[in-house]
């Protein structure tokens, strides 16, 4: 299905957030995920299904003042 991932359109195989992280090769540590403007708690990655057109944001910490 096609989702909006970090502002870009992307075709993904994953059906849920946990699978999406695996598909992208991301570590779960110290990232956070928002699905359609709602934070997805880490404990609910597996239960959070993805739907066509979802807006997903995946963020982490970088240097800043």
């Amino acid at each position, binding site marked *: 299905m096609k989702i909006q991932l970090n502002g870009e359109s992307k075709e993904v195989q994953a059906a849920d957030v946990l699978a999406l992280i695996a598909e992208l090769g991301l570590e779960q540590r110290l990232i956070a995920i928002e699905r359609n403007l709602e934070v997805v708690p880490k404990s609910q990655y597996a239960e959070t299904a993805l739907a066509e057109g979802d807006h997903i944001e995946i963020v982490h*910490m970088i*240097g*800043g003042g």
Partner: protein
Amino acid sequence: MSDDTLKVGSYEFRSRLIVGSGKYKDFETTRLATEAAEAEMITVAVRRVNITEAGKENLLDYIDPKKYVILPNTAGCFNAEDAVRTLRLAREAGGWDLVKLEVLGDTETLYPNVVETIKAAETLVDEGFQVMVYTNDDPIVATRLEEIGCVAVMPLGNPIGSGRGLANPFNIRVIKQRAKVPIVVDAGIGTASDAAKAMELGADAVLINTAIAEARDECLMANAMRDAVRAGRAAYLAGRMPKRSFASASSPTDGYFWT
């Protein structure tokens, strides 16, 4: 001074120098300078992961969240909604509840948008965040932010990254005199004397990024800032002498053996 700790919300620190982690040439320099500053709290920004660079090393591989209190910021947010979103994500990422709220007004001055800052502070305090809030050097606004429940108020010394020192030392002092929460001078510190001056005025801490990151020798400047903050704090606690219009001899004026 060993028991002179900085209490911010439920946290307690020995260091009164908070550092930022932006603008460094690499992560290793960030780590070394942060150690040289003997800081215990370090700000970080929240940004999109670069999906195409998964597995690349991260700032927090160098700045250990078990060793430092990580202070996520809302840098780059120009409205309350984006700031709240950012900090909700930061809390989920690392469990951090102590946060630095800054809502900016425009890209040229980076001055705070106080109206949006107040809106965001209300929401974040309601949601259980411990909010350290960047704001103008305005005593009325500082009091308002304290009333909302912010755990520290952080007036600017001068615009972010300007290195121009304290524009309005009198307001910093007034803000401090009226506050019950810690006052942190955030932004504008350019060199060690600026940091010492802020501490002498009674600031409880200073937050420094650019002055260290853009120094020719980052670690040496971090040492200098560490020492300046300690010296300024000691001078504040010691209580400075009064200023006089005329001289006051340091040696006794009696017992002269010449005429």
